[in-house]
């Protein structure tokens, strides 16, 4: 990591589900791990999430969902990141997913899925190990 770099993470809740216990607990855990956490609150559309991720220049997006609407929102978020040329932003998910959906989510580029019972420590460790804050921008295009 470059000197002075801080990892920035967006914790977002897509969809209309307001059950934010998990999102709030994990946001605190990320803060306590030394990350800068941008929290969107509940009820975000994929468009809002991607726009926020870009404006806030985060390294990773953590999506929390319990409603089953991930079949729509997760692929849509991946699609929008691609359209915005922002595929370098990693995406992870937490919540309840039917087991058969998990490989499908990984196939579309979700880096990791954390299920109920996942330890906070394991999640923050995973982020620290797997996510590198990006390089500095260069003055002249390379």
């Amino acid at each position, binding site marked *: 990591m470059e000197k002075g770099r801080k990892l920035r993470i967006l914790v977002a809740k897509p*969809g*209309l*589900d*307001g*059950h*934010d*216990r998990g999102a*709030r*607990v994990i*946001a*605190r855990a990320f*803060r306590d791990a030394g990350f800068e956490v941008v*929290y969107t*609150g*509940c*009820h975000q*559309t994929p468009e809002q999430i991607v726009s926020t991720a870009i404006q806030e220049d985060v390294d990773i997006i953590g999506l929390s969902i319990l*409603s*089953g*609407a*991930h*079949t*729509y*929102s997760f692929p*849509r978020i991946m699609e929008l990141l691609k359209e915005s040329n922002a595929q370098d932003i990693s995406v992870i998910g937490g919540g*309840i997913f*039917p*087991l*058969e959906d998990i490989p499908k989510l990984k196939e579309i580029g979700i880096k990791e899925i954390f*299920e*109920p*019972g996942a*330890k*906070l*420590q394991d999640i923050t460790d995973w982020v620290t190990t797997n996510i590198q804050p990006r390089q500095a921008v260069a003055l002249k295009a390379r």
Partner: protein
Amino acid sequence: MGKKVLSESALERMQTEYNEWLAEYKQALQKMPERLGRFSTVSDLEIKPLYTPQDIEHKDFFEEIGFPGFYPFTRGVQSTMYRARLWTMRMFAGLGTSEDTNQRFHYLINHGETGLSTAFDFPTLMGYDTNSPLARGECGKCGVAIDTVEDMQRLFANINLEKVTTSMTINPPASIVWAMYIANAENEGYSRSKLGGTIQNDCLKEFIAQKTLMLPPEPSLRLVTDTVEFGTREVPRWNTISISGYHIREAGSTAVQELAFTIYDGITYVEEGIKRGLAVDDFAGRLSFFWNSHIDFFEEIAKMRASRRLWARLMKERFKAKDPRSMLMRFHTQTAGCSLTAQEPYNNIIRTTTEGLAAILGGTQSLHTNSLDEVYMIPSEEAVLIALRTQQILADETGVTNVIDPLAGSYFIEALTDKMEEEATEYIRKLDELGGMVRAIERDYPQMEIADAAYHFQQQVEAGEKLIIGVNKYASERRELEFVLKIDDTIEKMQVDRTNQFKEKRNKDRYRRAMDELRRRCEGPPSWENNVMPALIEAVRAGATEQECCDLYREVFGVYTDPGTF
């Protein structure tokens, strides 16, 4: 037991023998230490190894425990309790389309369920029709999609609405969905004065915990009070608010926080009703409550017993209620969704049984027992039947319903009941000091208390101080159940088409007039003349959809978003 039941000499002997036991206990621990560093409830309330008559020596039996059906109702709200009538077995159900849910209702009734409870999908809960762009991917997933009065008709087809009571878990749009229910029932030939049921309609706990957010607190309270006023005058058998601790607890609160914040929400609703000009005894009897039954068996029983006494005292002393019915804490209970595990899901049956038993010993008026697969999804038919049967076995086989409030007089239960009341009273005092619940919510006070408790619990789990079988003890891999319900993504388009067709065929003039009248009432000062309910009933009859009414609310009253502070 009773005030000074123990004589001076008995007390003395008690103390001496207690000390002897304690010395023996400590000595024994030298050889084999206590299993845990600290024994505490799931809410982290510390528990002593032994309770004795000394722990309840200060109690006055008549003032604090008394008899069931009599003030302060610690032992139950009816004199007969389950010897005359069991609690209502009310399973929360809603899935897919209105037809799918109607089918589930009939299935449950055919298997012995005695009341209905409706789960709506997220767009309906948030005041959006299925065709809203915000509703993409949500239709029917976590409940049933209700956009129009026609959906309501399909939902309750072939169900006698004067015989069965219906609970509807709906909050910001509660007035609209209730209007649809009343309009449909009248279309089917039932009389509104004979309709019985409950709308959850508890906007305050949404700000605190569940975050089904739509309008700011003040207009939300105005709409709640409109329904209370309308119910008092026109639908007298309806419970117009189900003041809910359930979601507060699921958000991670302690038992005491659930008790205190919920009761304070109740205080706020009573104050609003009085401000509207209603007499407390005219409406307080129709307020009902909703508790979570979590995994810590005795803590839950104590909480429920304390809730009855606390509410009765508040109604009598703070609000000067005269009618004993105004003082009754009648409540529904649901076993704790957050205690279920995705790992080894069959274990959830055992958790639910324990929690259901606590609710029964706590004296609940109705009960939803979670299905073992509810941790993943809304339940399958197979799982919901086991959950319903769990209640029926507890009711008919175990004998726990033979006697009223069987745990009364237990040194531990009475002491814990007192502790619950004491600590909740302290929170109530703090909330008074903050200027009431709305102000406290604006300052994020209850939200922060809950978030702190949730984080604390999670850290305890990770440190192994709180154990969850299959998760942090005997941890196991998750396996899929053989019967997981799947909601077909194609029903979304079907529902969108249906709602669009419904809107096309409505009488435009009648619809316009009805919406104008609704707007006029919303914009006017709160009063019976401006009560939204009559205008809503006409509006939904005239073809207004749920979202159209909510959009009008949002326009007139403004939109509230979660402050989301940490």
